[in-house]
């Protein structure tokens, strides 16, 4: 059902090479740091600047964020909710989260 839909979609806009793309078994691109850190801001605030009781992430270093997330993920750091969130991300993604936060939330 889905491939049918997308095939129609492509043809309608003249992207005639699209069916060939289906054959390639390319895995999805890794989620970008920008997409990943958008999952943090609902609680930690836009740009990592909390508006309330939840800790601000802006200003923390890459190493601090990475270590905290890995510790939450591996239940080495006390948590209410972060151990549940951190387990949702691969170690590589945690690295990307830490890099992105350190680079963009100052």
């Amino acid at each position, binding site marked *: 059902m889905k*491939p049918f*839909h997308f095939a129609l*979609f492509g043809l309608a806009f003249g992207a005639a090479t699209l069916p060939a*793309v*289906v054959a390639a078994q390319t895995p*999805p691109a890794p989620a970008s740091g920008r997409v990943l850190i958008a999952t943090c801001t*609902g609680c930690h605030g*836009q740009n990592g600047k909390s508006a309330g009781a939840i800790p601000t992430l802006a200003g923390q270093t890459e190493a601090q964020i990475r270590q905290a997330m890995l510790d939450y993920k591996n239940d080495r750091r006390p948590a*209410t909710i972060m151990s549940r969130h951190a387990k949702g991300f691969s170690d590589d993604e945690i690295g990307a989260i830490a890099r992105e936060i350190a680079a963009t939330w100052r």
Partner: protein
Amino acid sequence: MAQFKLSRRAFGASLLASSALSACAIRTEPAAKARVVVVGGGFGGATAAKFLRLEDPGIAVTLVEPKSEFQTCPFSNYVLSGFKTMADITHNYSALTSTHGVRHIRETAVAIDAAAKTVRTSGGQTLAYDKLVLSPGIEIRYGALEGYDAAAAERMPHAWAAGAQTVLLRRQLEAMPDGGTVVLSIPANPFRCPPGPYERIAMIAHYLKTTKPRSKILALDAKDAFSKQGLFQDGWQSQYGAMIEWVPLGKDGKVVRVDPAALTLTSEFGEVHKASVANVIPPQSAGRIAIASGLAATEGALAGWCPVDPFTFESTRAKDIHVIGDASIAGAMPKSGFSASSQAKFVAQAIGAVVNGRPAPTAVFANTCYSLITPDYGISVADVFRPTAQGIVAVQGAGGVSPRAPANAAQFRAQEAHYAEGWYASTTKETWGS
């Protein structure tokens, strides 16, 4: 996996193609890289509008939302309880318009022409779009529960859209004499905010315990199981004891008929429950505009809700329309303000990417929902979500609910209650703030 790549490419190709086409036809707007119309000013729509502008100021964003102020369903249960006011849950669009350059049209979207790529408004305007973000929330399905129509909602409020209905239910609770019975009717899945009815039970109990302690709450449920069930039942028992009675489907909890004049609710097997105050949370569907535009499924268990591509939230029924928030069929993601916000931020990045000739990014979503048992006793559910060809799924081995028996339980629950406040402050600022 292969489908994923295809969908991203198609997504980009269609935007570029359609921009080129429609640029010739519509000349009323100043030159913009792309015109995005956002329908609905709740967590999904307001976040999408703001973040599209942050993503690329070259995107012209028009928000179609009739209200000038928005009252959030999250925290509206605390207005019922009395420790928050309507002012506390009211937000407006001034930062979106003045700081972020969103054009706000205070009208209702009444029709979408997906072929012409236009939205018609209640004031008779026709808005052309390259991309449409539809975040219309829910519509109460008046008539789906026998006896429950718009007039009945004035006598037996649903309070499932925050605003006048919240105030009405609060006033009824205030007017109820001590020793009265508050009866809630809770619908089958799916509906907006799965833990909401159960938090509401606790928050009404909190009000009654402190002001009218001989009163009772009878919760009649069309389900046998619900969100954070063990945590809620533990909290109800420890904080409110016998004040709360929850009747599941299997014990004849499903309400099939209401009589607003008599204030009675009748169960499937004919038991008639008399209420002092009746809070009927009725069956729901995607917002009216989604149904009217043919974007909702018409059959099956999810009839009335909008199927979307899990990788892009683009409607499977119309190209260039992204349906987000409660109205969408988002797999394992609950219908929550947090989910809508998470989807909105992703869709803003995705539209920003294709407008600039880049492939749409790979999606990751999250949800966190706090609920209160008392103002100092919070519980939560949290998950990380990923798209798959079969729909959006929660990451296994992650997420879940608060521990049932944490060490230092009182401190843990108090901390989560504190974080509930923190979440609300951050998310409402992110959604409606500068």
